[in-house]
């Protein structure tokens, strides 16, 4: 097992190098002027400004020289300065990743718990009321464009009812979080608020998380629900379930100890990918609710041709995918003793 894990982790540097080379290769198709426009927002007032900027940022050097300069910095732990985020790339990731992680956790747990539970119930009462409702619910959720649903809930719950606002924190809470009285341990406001003993800020942050989490959940419940339902149905039709029942086990034992663990495998795969997808940042939800996370950051960086930010973020995402896939594979071994890792 340990060998397996180590071997899988050793792939990581290779993946990172491959991705960075790929990105630089794509960058080399852009002219220095196009890359310089990251630093200029309108036509330069002076004829020399363009050339000066190209020179300052080394955009006219050969691509392999630029790559090597970047690699040297990265090996020293410096991912460079993000023009999009207006701070070092490392700081931007430390700021936006916890925000996305927080939103992901608060969305993922409801998605998985409710999705799995509903899926099991739907499978157990196949074609019953719950099954019908769940399937209808999931079709609607999956076909709804995120921004439409997001704007609808924003209008209903924010404009009309004024229950849940957009953004991450109210202004008064924001002032406290950024003051010296508040220590940011994790960068995730909900957890930091508890650690700082500020229950009022915890509630305020939670209030701001409801709408984006609901938007994400509503769309993704469908997926988990359907996968859980179909794999549960398949598991329930297996011979070992008949045997278990024949042995006289309670229905509760049959479902929870025999059917569900086997049905979970596809759900684990999808769940893992879903979590990583959430961690990548969900740009549309973040845009609608003005929730600053990895999605907005990455999208803006790519749109403005901010190579340095894009590289830093891509490395992070690549690392996340490698680790997530590894975790899922290891999880398989725990869920299903038939699977051996070697």
């Amino acid at each position, binding site marked *: 097992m340990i060998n397996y894990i180590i071997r899988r982790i050793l792939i990581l540097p290779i993946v990172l190098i491959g991705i960075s080379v790929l990105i630089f290769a794509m960058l080399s198709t852009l002219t220095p002027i196009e890359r310089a426009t990251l630093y200029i927002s309108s036509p330069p007032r002076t004829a020399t400004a363009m050339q000066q900027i190209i020179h300052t940022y080394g955009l006219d050097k050969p691509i392999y020289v630029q790559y090597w300069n970047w690699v040297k910095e990265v090996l020293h732990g410096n991912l460079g300065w993000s023009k999009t985020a207006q701070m070092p790339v490392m700081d931007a990731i430390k700021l936006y990743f916890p925000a996305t992680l927080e939103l992901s956790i608060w969305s993922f747990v409801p998605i998985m718990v409710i999705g799995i539970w509903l899926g099991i119930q739907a499978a157990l009462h196949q074609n019953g009321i719950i099954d019908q409702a769940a399937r209808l619910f999931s079709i609607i959720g999956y076909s709804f464009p995120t921004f439409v649903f997001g*704007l609808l809930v924003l209008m209903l719950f924010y404009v009309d009812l004024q229950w849940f606002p957009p953004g991450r924190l109210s202004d008064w809470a924001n002032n406290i979080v950024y003051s010296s009285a508040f220590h940011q341990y994790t960068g995730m406001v909900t957890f930091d608020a508890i650690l700082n003993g500020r229950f009022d800020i915890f509630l305020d942050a939670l209030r701001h998380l409801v709408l984006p989490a609901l938007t994400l959940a509503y769309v993704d419940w469908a997926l988990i629900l359907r996968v859980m339902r179909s794999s549960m149905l398949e598991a329930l039709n297996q011979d070992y379930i008949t045997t278990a029942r024949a042995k006289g086990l309670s229905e509760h034992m049959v479902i929870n100890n025999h059917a569900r663990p086997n049905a979970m495998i596809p759900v684990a795969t999808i769940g893992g990918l879903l979590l990583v997808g959430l961690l990548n940042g969900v740009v549309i939800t973040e845009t609608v609710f003005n929730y600053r996370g990895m999605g907005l950051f990455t999208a803006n960086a790519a749109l403005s041709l901010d190579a340095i930010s894009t590289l830093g973020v891509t490395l992070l995402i690549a690392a996340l995918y490698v680790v997530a896939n590894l975790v899922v594979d290891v999880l398989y071994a725990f869920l299903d003793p038939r699977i051996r890792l070697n």
Partner: protein
Amino acid sequence: MSFPSKHLTLTISSMVILSMVLVACGGAATPAVSTSVPTEAATSVGQPTATEAPTSGPTTAPTSAAAQVKNPDTLIDGEISDPQSLDPAWAYDTASGLVIFNVYETLIFPKKDSYSDYVPMLATSWTISPDGKTYTFNIRQGVTFHDGEPLTPQDVAYSFWRGMIQDRAGGPQWILLQPFFGLNVQSFQDDVVTKQFGGNFVAACEAVQKAITFDNQAGTVTMNLKQPYGPMLPILTGTWASIVSMPWVIQQGGWDGKCSDAQKYHNPAANQDELFNKMNGTGPYKFVRWQPNTEVDLTRNDNYWLKQPLWDGGPSGPAAVKNVIIKTIPEFGTRFASLKTGDLDMAYVDTQYISQVDPLVAQTCDASGNCTPTNNAGATLKVYKGLVSPESADIFFTQKVNTTGGIPAELGSGKLDGNGIPPDFFSDINIRKAFNYCFDWNTYIQQVYNGEAQQAYGPFISGEIGYDPNQPHYTFDLQKCADSFKASTLKSADGKSVWDTGFYVQFIYNTGNDQRKVAGEILQQNLAKVNPKFKLEVVGEPFPLELSDQTAGRLPIYMIGWLEDYHDPNDWATPFLASNGTYSGTQAFDPTLQKQLDQLILQGVTETDQAKRQAIYAQLQNLAYENALDLFVVQPQIRSYQQLWVKGFYFNPLYPGAPGYYFYSLSK
């Protein structure tokens, strides 16, 4: 399916659909605050009230009295872009300008809503020598920076030295370099250090310190210009001319004022600049923090120096509202939602969304703050309309397209064969005139701007010297368009005229800017009406691509805008007409004409007699018209949407922003 299940599915689905419909309709309703709408409001439309005080509005205004003021001690502004730097010497975008302008101050300041009258701010008075080359400013006493340090003439001189020596690439310092080092100077390093001082940075730095001198005893700062400079006072109101505290900048790691180590402070990247995210000014608001891409927080300066208003009815003493938050909310739906709930006091509304916001407008106001009520029930906002923005959008012709490296796709086949144009297509004045006659300004202004724009007659916009509302200009005339094409002297390889062969060309605009796209489409349709062989294709390019092509002179016809840096015709003459202008530099005008233009521009900027200046710029405007150098399109008007409880707004086009807010003059 058994009957109950089917029935249930139907019930559930109809409930879901019903709830969706309710939310969609309910979304347009007003917030939960219930208000009584007196029916008199509808009848008072005919009697505009507020001629005395700006924005007081009629007392029968619907809902304004009943709506609770949200966040009474904070002004919250919803903008769409984030500052790029908080260093006044470095920043050149309006988002940064808006913050800098409320925290730092300049020597002189526009008088309320005027853009040509100035009031003394950090300078109490000034004198200009008869030859126009020496300006002496008396510096105000008793002013302190936000950190408590007093303002001295040395701080003033240092602020200008620091900026000019910094001169970051793509920044605003070229504006200050010109009066002191020559009208062709665009860069400190290239045009001053290299060309004038043989590469000796220290010597160039010393020249800067001689150009602007200070006398702490006498309390004065003297500026020694290289030549008389018409725009001198206007440029001193720009954010780049803000005054910083020398000891404080040094504390932050900045230049110590000695020329021996000035060079390492030249042209820093944004993040290498010590004042990138720190502020210490003399203004009515102090800097609290900047959360990049999220918001900027300011708080009242309780020790603000201003005791007497600078103009009648102007603010004085500490600011009326304690805090200011400028939020960056790029998505309109979210910004609008916050405007509806009152969580934003003012917000930027993109032109295409105006029809969504207008039903919530209770009062319509003009640029000076005179308001008339609408008859929208339950409305909570007011809108300031018809704010003439100091910008224009125009269509440019490149008379000789750069074909090094191959024929650009925009030229099609590159020949006059019906499938393209030759690189010198627009060098024929008849072609340029024809394109002008084929543009329908009225339709464009109605369709794209809802009538809130005016036709641009030339490089000088309305309100600028050189503009005359009665000057000759092109009007939409399909017949004249056809005649001009027929008068063209261009010939194809086999001797045919343009009219017979037809042409194909790509009209470039930057993707996302639908206003410019529509301009291209109008041109396209009219050209095809005149002659079906005239094919104009409207092509959007991402801004980086358009910029790089335009700088290289590879775009035959493109549309782009210009926003005024400082209020003086020179800021328009240079980019549109000069041989080294941002646009004209790659347009390849006829050399004789170009020489004449350059001479006039030089005369205009150094002329001190106002009447003579007027004549020079009027002549330039006319030359642009007679030679149909460009297709001048529009000067737009902008709007500001605010909550009814915001008081004190007036529009000054010089304030950075769209529009710019001088939070000191506002209250809730």
